[in-house]
């Protein structure tokens, strides 16, 4: 049982007009096996929360803490956070020209596991995970995310989730840009990882659509850089009906 604990997190970014505070005191605790949906309007800071936990250099932590089983995550380098068991499925996965998916996955798995995976079992492992996500085998030879469709990029993110087996996954708008079939395949992938590994999930989304496939235990409404309401799955139904209007003050 692991715990990811975010306490009173404040985060700023530097803009041309000076520093701008995006997160204004976020409190959230996620335990293994739990799925927390973070829902909120565009621009509320949901992605900033995701990237700050992963350690993107653009975001400056100005207050608060993030710990994984009591260990300070904010002190870790980006790769150390991944090795500690955090995974961020990005909304816009980055293209890395000239680096094949095969090479990338193997390098990442080697780093996370602390030793190179054995060739024989590894090839099978990758093939199986790709097949489960309906990914063509020629995918492995392509450059990371280069020329991938929106759906392919998201499947590639979930493929990494399956292979890297983190303790906690932050899924940042994984549902955006997916058609119904792709959404189902991607969601099944997430559920499969969770059933195999007691994964804790922070599911960031704007829409309730993905929650039909990935059932949240908790729903948090995010607005203006903090969590403004919390509840169970029924809160998502209310958002579906009424939108975010009541949380957004002019």
């Amino acid at each position, binding site marked *: 049982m692991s715990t990811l604990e975010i306490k009173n997190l404040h985060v700023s970014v530097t803009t041309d007009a000076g520093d701008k505070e995006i997160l204004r005191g976020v409190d959230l605790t996620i335990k293994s096996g739990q799925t927390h949906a973070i829902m909120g309007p565009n621009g509320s800071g949901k992605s900033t929360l995701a990237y700050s936990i992963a350690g993107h*250099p653009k975001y400056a932590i100005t207050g608060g803490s993030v710990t994984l089983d009591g260990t300070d995550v904010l002190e870790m380098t980006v*790769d150390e956070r*991944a090795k500690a068991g955090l995974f961020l499925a*990005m909304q816009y996965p980055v293209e*890395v*020209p000239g680096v094949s998916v095969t090479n990338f996955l193997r*390098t990442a798995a080697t*780093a996370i596991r602390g030793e190179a995976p054995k060739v024989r079992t590894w090839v099978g492992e990758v093939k199986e995970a790709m097949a489960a996500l309906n990914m063509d085998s020629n995918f492995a030879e392509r450059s*990371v995310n280069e020329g991938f469709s929106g759906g392919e990029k998201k499947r590639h993110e979930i493929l990494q989730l399956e292979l890297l087996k983190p303790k906690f996954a932050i899924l940042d708008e994984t549902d955006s840009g997916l058609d119904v079939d792709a959404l189902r395949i991607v969601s099944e992938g997430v559920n499969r990882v969770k059933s195999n590994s007691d994964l804790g999930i922070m599911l960031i989304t704007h829409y309730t659509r993905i929650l039909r496939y990935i059932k949240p235990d908790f729903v948090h409404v995010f607005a203006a850089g903090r969590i403004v309401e919390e509840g169970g799955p029924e809160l998502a139904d209310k958002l579906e009906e009424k939108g975010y209007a009541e949380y957004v003050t002019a």
Partner: protein
Amino acid sequence: MSLPTNYLAPSGREEAWRFTPLNRLAGLLDASVSLTSTNSFIAGNLPTGVSFEVKKSSDLGPISTTTDEATLRVRQSAIEVSHLSISDGTELSAPIVLKRSVLGGTPEVSRLLISAGVNSHATVIIENAGEAVLAEDIEFSLATGATLNVISLQEWGPKTIHLGRSHAVIGKDATFNSLIVTIGGSVVRLLPTVEYSGPGASADLSGLYFATDGQHLEHRMHVDHNIPNGKSRVNYKGALAGDKARTVWIGDVYIRAAAEGTDTYELNRNLLLTDGARADSVPNLEIETGEIVGAGHASTTGRFDDEQLFYLESRGIPADIARRLVIRGFFQEIVSKIKDEEIEERLMSRIDGELEKVGA
């Protein structure tokens, strides 16, 4: 073609020499320094249809004219010429490898002519390693329908001075693919140049260079579209790391009035890995006819893409390995054209090693 007699050393004010550190050329352009003529190429076992001979320079003169002072010096001083000839219709599946025997600190000149016969198909790999002070004149003659792939590797030691022109005269419907890799040497200045002798011919000039502390690596293309329906593609990629690492890329493409139907595109991309390095990139396109298929150029010089590094690091990959992956990826497009895994890995490993040395 007679050898020039009125050689004049460049002063550095010439457009063609303004980037080059003339004070580091170890006498190669100094008329008072006598140059040794050398035929240091060693050809391995040659397949049927291929010959390699050393001939008198006076019996086998140059096939092209040039104004390049270093090449003129070679033509003035070279007594012999190495001639690799691929006969008509010869199709080779394995590459021909030309290696140099060990040269040294003595300034030397070298002439090489490679003739590709009608409808022949061959790959030649020219491997330069060790230390040398060398000026060379390489020419390629492609007969009708020939395909000639040339991979030229400059894996020199740190002291080498190397000035060279490699000029292709491409016949009707022939295809010339050149790949130049320069990762060693103190000063390397190469002129990959092309002219066409028949319509429908195609040239692809690719290159990769990697400069660290104090290295000056210069590549100056000149593509002369002088005949209709010619095609050319230029794609050079470079990376620089360390103090006073210096690269120069000049891409001159000339479309003459007669060259209707020309299709050309040139691209140069540079990656600056540390402060203190400098890349010059100058594409020049001169067009004398509007009746062309296409003409374009692009040049970019930038730093590491932080988003790429973040993406890799967020998957547990340590920063230094992430940087190495990105650089390997940057060069992959060029290196993969070699189609020889052993050479590809050797080049990439050397780049990895030099990156580590400069701490990039």
